[in-house]
């Protein structure tokens, strides 16, 4: 193990990889800080560039960019009352309220430090728990994998937004996209519409660029943003008095760390949900719940730590089972597959150096976040002055070249366009994107594991509950599916009595 650790460290701390990390950090901070550009978009746009790197620098770049973007989303929250990424939305009102009181440095300081603490905590949990979990996962059969995939899809569909129906629609569409191409079991082409380009299925990277970047460009042009007014001119003294604040908010930070990591680990639930859940839980148990929404430092600390902890935590199911915890890890999994590093329990046996490299990249990225994030806060005014009307056409070019670069075919640009239109249409109609993306990634796994299980059991569905872990996972999944029905009955019962 020491040899692998040293090898990973040697690769991670080589000048080339460090340069990649710093460059992706700046990229992530910039994209996260510009409202309308998200952490997921930053990761998706990085894919074509990482395509030509070794696994460790590639993953380190994506890990760094996503963590930085997640924090940087707090900058416009505090200065403009506009969340830079959806995961900052939970505490935007509090961050902005503090800015209105002339305390922008306090709110951004809390966001920066709790983000770094949350990210590092999540990374430590990842490195401590992932290897033993992987040795358990080695004993998993197709039954457990089937339920695990289905659990991930279920959580993403049911927990993401208020309306599970929209989540289910998104999920079904994503799973259907995953069936395009040759059926792996029978070898029959499905839904290829006679096109030879679709026989291998729709490739993931152009789809991601489409739904996360091209759709966002459409959205920008469809709804020109209202004029923005910067609240505070200069943010100074970000770190002054933070030690005291962090100590006073230690409970909220601890709660955010733990809750964020756990929600990150649950397949299908990511940073956005982590921030919301942690914020509302902190409010519920707070001594001053009335402060929430009006500049609560407690709420900021709890949610700011949670979203970054979730970014790290999401890598647990991604690495251990090959099942993405959220949209960002879905992209990372796609990249690892392209590099021949297959995520799943065997990655710990076959590519331990890569795994340790990822662990260390997380810690390094979150440590780097403190000085680089400070610089981003100082430059916040400049970043927020960047006009999206100039940036968006250039991002569009990157989208087209980026999707072309992955396969060197023009079809990929067409795929990015198609999914950009679809993603825009879905967002306009309140259909969440995350279940759709997870459906595309997990679809083949669900189908193959289901068919393999059916072959093993000779067609008996009861076999899906025979093994204890499979039965447990299956029970949770079915419980989530039936929960809306249960709540409907519970609402009706008192009326009848």
């Amino acid at each position, binding site marked *: 193990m020491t040899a692998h650790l040293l090898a990973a460290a040697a690769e991670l701390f080589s000048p080339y990889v460090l340069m990649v990390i710093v460059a992706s950090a700046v990229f992530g901070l910039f994209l996260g800080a510009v409202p309308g550009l998200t952490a997921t978009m930053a990761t998706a746009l990085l894919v074509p560039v990482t395509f030509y790197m070794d696994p460790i620098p590639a993953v380190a770049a994506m890990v760094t960019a996503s963590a930085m973007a997640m924090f940087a989303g707090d900058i416009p929250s505090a200065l403009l009352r506009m969340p830079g990424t959806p995961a900052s939305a939970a505490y935007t009102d509090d961050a902005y309220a503090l800015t209105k009181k002339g305390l922008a440095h306090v709110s951004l300081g809390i966001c920066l430090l709790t983000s770094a603490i949350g990210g590092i905590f999540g990374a430590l949990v990842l490195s401590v728990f992932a290897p033993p979990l992987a040795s358990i996962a080695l004993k998993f059969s197709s039954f457990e994998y089937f339920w695990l995939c289905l659990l991930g899809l279920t959580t993403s569909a049911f927990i993401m937004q208020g309306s599970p129906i929209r989540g289910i629609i998104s999920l079904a569409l994503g799973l259907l996209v995953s069936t395009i191409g040759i059926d792996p079991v029978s070898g029959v082409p499905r839904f290829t519409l006679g096109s030879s380009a679709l026989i291998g299925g729709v490739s993931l990277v152009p789809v991601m660029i489409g739904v996360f970047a091209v759709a966002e460009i459409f959205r920008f042009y469809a709804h020109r943003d209202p004029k923005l007014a910067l609240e505070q001119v200069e943010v100074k003294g970000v770190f002054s008095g933070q030690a005291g604040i962090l100590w006073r908010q230690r409970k909220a930070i601890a709660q955010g760390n733990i809750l964020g990591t756990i929600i990150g680990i649950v397949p299908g639930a990511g940073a956005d949900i982590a921030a919301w859940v942690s914020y509302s839980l902190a409010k519920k148990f707070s001594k001053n719940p009335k402060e929430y929404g009006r500049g609560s430092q407690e709420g900021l600390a709890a949610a700011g730590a949670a979203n970054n902890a979730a970014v790290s935590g999401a890598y647990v199911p991604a690495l251990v089972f090959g099942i993405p915890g959220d949209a960002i890890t879905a992209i990372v999994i796609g990249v690892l597959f392209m590099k021949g590093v297959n995520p799943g329990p065997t990655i710990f046996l076959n590519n331990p150096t890569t795994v340790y490299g990822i662990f260390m990249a997380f810690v390094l990225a979150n440590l780097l976040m403190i000085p680089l994030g400070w610089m981003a806060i100082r430059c916040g005014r400049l970043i927020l002055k960047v006009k999206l009307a100039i940036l968006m*056409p250039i991002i569009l070019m990157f989208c*087209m070249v980026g999707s072309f670069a992955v396969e060197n075919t023009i079809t990929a640009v067409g795929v990015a366009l198609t999914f950009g239109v679809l993603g825009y249409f879905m967002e306009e109609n309140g259909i969440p994107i995350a279940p759709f993306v997870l459906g595309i990634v997990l679809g083949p796994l669900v189908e193959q594991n289901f068919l393999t299980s059916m*072959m093993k059991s000779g067609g008996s569905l009861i076999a899906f509950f025979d093994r204890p872990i499979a039965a447990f996972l299956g029970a949770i999944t079915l419980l989530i599916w039936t929960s809306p029905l249960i709540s409907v009955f519970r609402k009706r019962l008192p009326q009848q009595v």
Partner: protein
Amino acid sequence: MTNLGDRALGLLIAAFGIGVIYMALQLPEPMAGSHIAYGPGFFPVLLGIVATIAGVALAIVRPGIPGEVDTDGLSQAGRPRFAGPALVLLSMLAYVYLSDLIGFIPLAAVTLAILLVFGGMRLLPALVLSIVASVSIYFMFSKGLLVPLPRGPLQTWAIWL
């Protein structure tokens, strides 16, 4: 309107689901003698049924509340406009169909200039920025990452590109 409202959206999804079921039923039956009764159409049919039911549920359960789900304050931004998205769509279609013929640098420069001017930039700075940006992107991807971007008529200067 791109926001359809729950009823129309639900019906659209349901119709799509039925279409999927129909197409999936055309797929070949499971091979005779295979151990299981699930062919290539099994999973798509199942998904088609789920989409249909969810679509119908959306149309029936909450009829007539269009735009009820507020995505990040979209409602404040007002009605969507079409000129911009249409321009983006055209740019991408032009890239798909014309990039081999025209080459990356000229096509990207023209597209960028049009979008920048549309975004409110004055013509001259827009032209300069679009030429600088498209040449930089070309060299970054073509030389740095070895992506074979189409050169088009600039092929004659291939030594320099």
